[in-house]
């Protein structure tokens, strides 16, 4: 047996000599010891599942030779005895920038917009597609950064350039920084990296999240087409590299739960299983995260506790901030509980030395130790298909491991050594002298009691001078102890002593403050009394608050966690499968009918009966609402809204951004959803802004507060797209630098439409021809163009236009373009001079969605009049009043009522302008907009005549469920107050216990209007 093992080892060492040959010349005879090192008597975790007690680990030439229990150690091995110590496979960080140059933000070549790439070479058009970046060609060792990581147990990382939407490939390398990086690279191209953020590119496109998503999607389509038409198209380095990258594991930086879901959706479209680098807030939408079935890389940058002693400062913190502070450490446990595979990363953690502390905190919050180890070793290794090289200690694996004095996840465990590819890094002595005990320091100046306690590796000391206990400064290096202390009578006394193994005493000399030398000895008196030592103090219960949906103000906890979000949600106390509203004044929107003291019965989200005196249903789950004296109307529909959107409403760098979709960037946690529910809004069309003639694709949502983004979307709604005319698209109010992008005049705007629709028609024809052609072989498939595709949908009557417009000339122009190209303008929005061309609009069949009384904010609205809506209505144009404003949307009923004042419409006509009329222009009037049997129960109960300034919303109902209720709202406020108070008390305790705290910071809310541009908003003076 023994000889077999030896032969085997010899064979391997021969092999290794070959593989370790170097092309580098040696200056003098090389140092290649090829020592076999044996670590014995250790508790070894060979992987996250397997623990060997009393194990042996043999390593040589940077690799593991063998590992096992009771193994023979060859006599020539250098032996390291690790009795009582632990060996773990070194950790792996998949999301690192180690050894790479930091991102350089290129200056723009000129002030103002940059439309084109300034990159020299045969690259693609957009500088955010950095697929050509090969990190393995750029990486260099950085011993300081390597040290930071090795100290906390890491042996290897995947390093990548953290910049751009496509970021090229990352390199897998070991952190043995004393070696040439050549010797450290494990795999040159370990993974492809992606994000939605354009990074350092000075090009304007994409300027928003929705644009980033569109660019990534288009790039994948382009790559597909390029691949299929290899050699037939222009050469393109960027696309060549995108194609190559797709064969690698793909790591996507999302940094947030909702961005993860967005990335997962893109991944699904292109059959890519992204590994998502999350943001640590996955627990806030855990069932959706689970639903992606993807692997995650998770940071542990748990928020530091806040300083809340000043109550005014504390007010600045939102409930979401406070709750995230409390619950962030439970994120890994939530992932484990939901069987979501994940790896840890040190990314986002400013102070890397806090890493293990935070992992232990996560364990304290419910993560299993086994999973913690897996997330640091096996999981990251397997995510990038390197599970045969790193992440475990097995034959032929890299000798990447660390030695700790205790099980690593114990509170006081220390990493003593980290070995990377067989190279040791020593952080603490393996077997320091255990100096703990009670001593007597003998000097002629006096006798002092000295005590060393604490950990063997990190003892703490104390000296008693005249019965007062003081601290004693000391250092111990191997056997030499150096100490100093303050003595009141004779000043500072210093001494250097050496250890005597036999006597356990230290002996040497000391010097007094006057310079006299004296003999000194530290005499061992007794061992420490360990009997008093508490047996593992019980951790106080965590008492964590619940996750609420949405995560923040006015969110609610699910009655039970675990199943699908929808199932749990529907078990809420205020969810009913049937509601009976009794004795209401019902504004039906059928003609002018207002029914007094009528009942409306709702079952499974639909209106089933409208009659006086419907008997109260006996069913226990039905709710009866006494609406005597109250008014019931259809839910308010806001045709023009920019709430509930993430990171930008305008992708305005180009004249057309038809490829972007607002549906990609819904933010279901925007507080404005709840605020608008309190104003009776049930459905909103979220529009792209008005920065360019052809904007992005709209999304229609119902304000189902609490649900995720996809569940907010209005089911089976027709697709819409935003167009815009006038001052915003010609950049009139954007400052003198914005004189570059076409168009700069209304004349140019017309030609933008002719240009794009001409191309869209040709594109559509070629797509259709290709679809019909039978001879696929040899036929070049047209490139799928997301922009032209959206425009072709307009031509094919599958997508409809909402056009931002003000002045009669341009309104007229667009109708002419539409007639000649062959489509209809569905809706003119804003349309403040609609009254001047109402007859033409009627003839064209366009609807109008306008403001009640806005004007004078820029030159093109100087002839806007508040009588507009009334004139349009009287001429016969289907007319709505919209908000374009998060504040105004809360009182659209009042805005509608202004058309009674200005123009003399009736109250029922006015109400229709925020209910039935917008429903018609959004093609949803078969479902909502009036109170009729068979329609959806999207309803509002008002305390007063809904057109009166004195009315407020009592209840807002969507799909037959109560989403806002003034009584429930009052309860929620109380709950929020209590929850805030609980968290603030907890934070105060945290501060008292000595934890470092940070001052609260505010997050100003970004509100979007038509003309909001990320980053350049300051230069804009006009509104809308």
């Amino acid at each position: 047996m023994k000889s077999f093992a030896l032969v085997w080892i010899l064979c391997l060492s021969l092999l290794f000599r070959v593989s370790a040959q170097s092309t580098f010349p040696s200056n003098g005879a090389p140092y290649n010891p090829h020592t076999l090192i044996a670590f014995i008597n250790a508790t070894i975790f060979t992987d996250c599942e397997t623990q060997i007690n009393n194990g042996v680990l043999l390593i040589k030439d940077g690799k593991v030779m063998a590992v096992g229990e009771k193994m023979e150690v060859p006599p020539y091995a250098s032996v390291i005895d690790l009795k009582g110590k632990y060996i773990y496979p070194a950790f792996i960080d998949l999301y690192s920038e180690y050894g790479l140059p930091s991102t350089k933000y290129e200056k723009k070549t000129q002030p103002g917009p940059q439309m084109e790439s300034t990159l020299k070479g045969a690259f693609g058009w957009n500088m955010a597609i950095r697929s050509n970046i090969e990190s393995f060609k750029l990486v260099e060792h950085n011993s300081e950064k390597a040290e930071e990581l090795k100290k906390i147990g890491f042996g290897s990382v995947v390093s990548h350039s953290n910049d751009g939407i496509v970021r090229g490939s990352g390199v897998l390398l070991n952190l043995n920084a004393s070696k040439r990086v050549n010797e450290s690279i494990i795999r040159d191209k370990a993974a492809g990296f992606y994000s939605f953020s354009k990074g350092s590119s000075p090009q304007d496109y994409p300027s928003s999240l929705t644009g980033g998503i569109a660019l990534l999607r288009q790039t994948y389509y382009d790559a597909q087409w390029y691949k299929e038409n290899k050699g037939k198209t222009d050469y393109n380095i960027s696309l060549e590299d995108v194609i190559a990258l797709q064969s690698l594991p793909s790591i996507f930086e999302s940094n947030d739960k909702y961005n993860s879901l967005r990335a997962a959706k893109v991944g699904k479209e292109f059959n890519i299983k992204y590994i998502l680098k999350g943001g640590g807030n996955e627990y806030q939408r855990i069932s959706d995260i689970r639903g992606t079935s993807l692997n995650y890389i998770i940071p542990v940058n748990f928020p530091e506790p806040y300083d809340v002693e000043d109550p005014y400062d504390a007010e600045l913190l939102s409930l979401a901030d406070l709750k995230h502070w409390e619950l962030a450490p439970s994120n890994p446990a939530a992932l484990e509980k939901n069987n979501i595979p994940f790896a840890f990363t040190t990314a986002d953690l400013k102070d890397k030395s806090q890493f293990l502390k935070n992992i232990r905190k996560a364990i304290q919050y419910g993560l299993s130790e086994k999973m913690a180890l897996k997330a640091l070793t096996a999981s990251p290794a397997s995510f990038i298909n390197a599970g045969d090289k790193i992440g475990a200690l097995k034959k032929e694996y890299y000798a990447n491991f660390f030695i700790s004095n205790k099980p690593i996840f114990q509170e006081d465990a220390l990493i003593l050594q980290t070995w990377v590819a067989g190279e040791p890094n020593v952080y603490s002595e393996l077997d320091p002298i255990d100096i703990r005990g009670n001593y007597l320091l003998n000097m002629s100046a006096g006798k002092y009691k000295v005590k060393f306690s604490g950990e063997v590796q990190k003892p703490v000391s104390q000296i008693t001078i005249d019965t007062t206990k003081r601290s004693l400064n000391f250092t111990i290096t191997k056997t030499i102890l150096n100490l100093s202390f303050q003595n009141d009578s004779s000043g500072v006394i210093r001494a250097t002593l050496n250890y005597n193994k036999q006597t356990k005493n230290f002996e040497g000399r000391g010097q007094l403050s006057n310079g006299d030398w004296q003999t000194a000895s530290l005499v061992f008196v007794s061992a420490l009394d360990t009997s008093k030592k508490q047996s593992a103090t019980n951790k106080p219960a965590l008492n964590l608050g619940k996750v609420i949906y949405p995560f923040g103000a006015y969110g609610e906890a699910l009655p039970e966690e675990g199943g699908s979000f929808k199932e749990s949600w529907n078990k809420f106390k205020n969810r009913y499968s049937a509601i009976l509203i009794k004795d209401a004044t019902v504004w039906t929107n059928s003609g002018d009918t207002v029914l007094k003291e009528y009942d409306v019965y709702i079952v499974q989200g639909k209106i089933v009966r409208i009659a006086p005196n419907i008997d109260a249903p006996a069913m226990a789950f039905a709710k009866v609402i006494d609406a005597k004296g109250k008014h019931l109307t259809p839910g308010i529909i806001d045709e023009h809204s920019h709430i509930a959107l993430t990171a930008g409403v305008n992708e305005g760098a180009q004249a057309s951004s038809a490829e972007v979709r607002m549906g990609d960037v819904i933010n279901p946690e925007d507080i404005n959803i709840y605020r608008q529910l309190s104003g009776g809004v049930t459905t909103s069309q979220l529009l792209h802004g008005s920065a360019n003639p052809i904007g992005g694709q709209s999304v229609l949502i119902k304000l189902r507060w609490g649900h995720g983004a996809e569940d907010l979307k209005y089911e089976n709604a027709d697709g819409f797209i935003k167009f815009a005319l006038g001052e915003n698209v010609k950049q009139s109010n954007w400052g003198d630098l914005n004189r570059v992008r076409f168009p700069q005049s209304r004349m140019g705007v017309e030609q933008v439409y002719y240009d794009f629709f001409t191309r869209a028609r040709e594109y559509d024809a070629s797509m259709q021809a290709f679809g019909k052609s039978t001879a696929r072989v040899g036929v070049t498939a047209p490139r799928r163009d997301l922009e032209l595709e959206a425009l072709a949908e307009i031509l094919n009557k599958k997508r409809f236009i909402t056009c931002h417009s003000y002045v009669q000339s341009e309104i007229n122009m667009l109708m002419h373009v539409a007639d000649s190209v062959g489509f209809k303008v569905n809706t003119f929005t804003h349309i403040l001079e609609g009254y001047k061309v109402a007859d033409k609009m009627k003839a064209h069949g366009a609807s109008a969605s306008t403001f009640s009384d806005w004007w004078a904010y820029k030159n093109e609205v100087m002839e806007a009049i508040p009588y507009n809506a009334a004139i349009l209505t009287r001429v016969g144009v289907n007319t709505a009043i919209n908000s374009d404003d998060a504040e105004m949307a809360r009182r659209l009923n009042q805005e509608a009522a202004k058309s009674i004042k200005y123009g003399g419409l009736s109250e029922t006509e006015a109400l229709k302008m925020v209910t039935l009329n917008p429903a018609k222009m959004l093609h949803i009037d078969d479902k909502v907009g009036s109170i009729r049997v068979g329609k959806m129960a999207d309803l509002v109960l008002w305390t007063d005549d809904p057109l009166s300034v004195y009315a407020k919303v009592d209840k807002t109902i969507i799909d037959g469920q109560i989403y806002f209720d003034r009584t429930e709202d009052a309860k929620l406020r109380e709950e929020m107050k209590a929850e805030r108070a609980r968290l603030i008390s907890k934070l105060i305790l945290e501060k008292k216990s000595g934890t470092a705290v940070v001052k609260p910071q505010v997050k100003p809310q970004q509100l979007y209007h038509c003309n909001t541009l990320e980053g350049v908003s300051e230069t804009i003076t006009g509104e809308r």
Partner: protein
Amino acid sequence: MKKNYIIGLFSLLAVLSNGQNNHIALLNAMAHIGNGEVIESSLVVIKDNKIEVVQSTKGLRLDYKSFDTVIDLAGKHIYPALINVNSILGLHDAEAVRATQDYGEVGYLNPHIRALIAYNTDNLIIPTVRSNGILYTQVTPRGGLISGSSSIMALAGWNWEDAVLKADDGIHLNYPQHVIQRKNEEESHYKDAAKRYQEDLRNLETFFTDAISYIKNPANPEKNLRYEAMRKVLSGEANLYVHVERARDMLSVINFVQKFGISKPVIVGGKDAYIITRELKNSKLPVILNRVNELPDRTDDDVDLVYRMPYLLQKDSVLFCLQMEGNMEAMNSRNLPFNAGETVAYGLTKEQALSTITLNAAKILGISHLLGSIEEGKLASLVISEGDILDMRSNNITLAYISGKKIDLTNRQNELNTKYKNKYGIK
């Protein structure tokens, strides 16, 4: 029966005028006095530029021959002129067009800047505001630490001299705001802002100290326009309007005005005023409260906090009025009555709501002897509406007087309305 007869007689004589308009009887309207009182059926008499008589028509016997004009307003409502406080109305036309903007000046401590001289009575927006019942505006400069002085102007007049009611009624100070770090903001940026905050506070104190010393000195070697402009504020003749939002900063303002002996300070903004009502009341600090039609500041705030704030101040007896400063404030000034109306569903009575845009405003601006309520001896600046002025359904101004003079209620917008209704043949 008798009473009905008399009133009936007058209605036959409605809008009977001898063309001189110096003695007018407005009869039978429901009078909303502005101080909380209502007269169901009223007689309001205008004599020259003043209100001569205000009384109920109950048991009234009146010799109508003594009036030049008698107007029957049965079924209608009469209100004191609404007052638009703290506004750039009159200082721009198309807001985005720089050439029309006249509300901000370069500089940091500009008490000598005077808004009234840029107030353009031929401004395009003014007539659209006037026709909703707002007859006065406090034209106010913006920007810097001290923006300059405001004046109270009528919304009608041949020129600013003609329109001015009270020139230079106060100086506007934008009080430095305690700096809070914003998320994702660079530490250095935050530190710069915090430093600037301290500097602003210091500079402000220095400026006030210097101004006081300058004014006390009878023999200043040279005349200083900036310090001269501070005279009225320091002597207590004019208001000091301190624009400030946060509780912590308002407490600082209370100390500041005490330190410099400012006798007429007014808070403008006051988002947190509801938190420190006791302190405000004790220091007799009135508040020109932010626009009602705004969003709450913090995500966790009660969703109706802004609507309810006026009630919270009323409840705790803080003197306050409403204003429209904010997004598109000039054109939005016409929605002032509806902002007041909005507060009614959240706690104020309708008459209290009216006071927030009439008498309370007049008191705060120091013109309550002239305006703010329908009371004898005050200026005859009155608004007659077909219905409730605070509700957009019924706000319909058919008659209005500024200092006894009937004013023109047409504007470019209703002219265009008529023009295009004619085009389409709409009635």
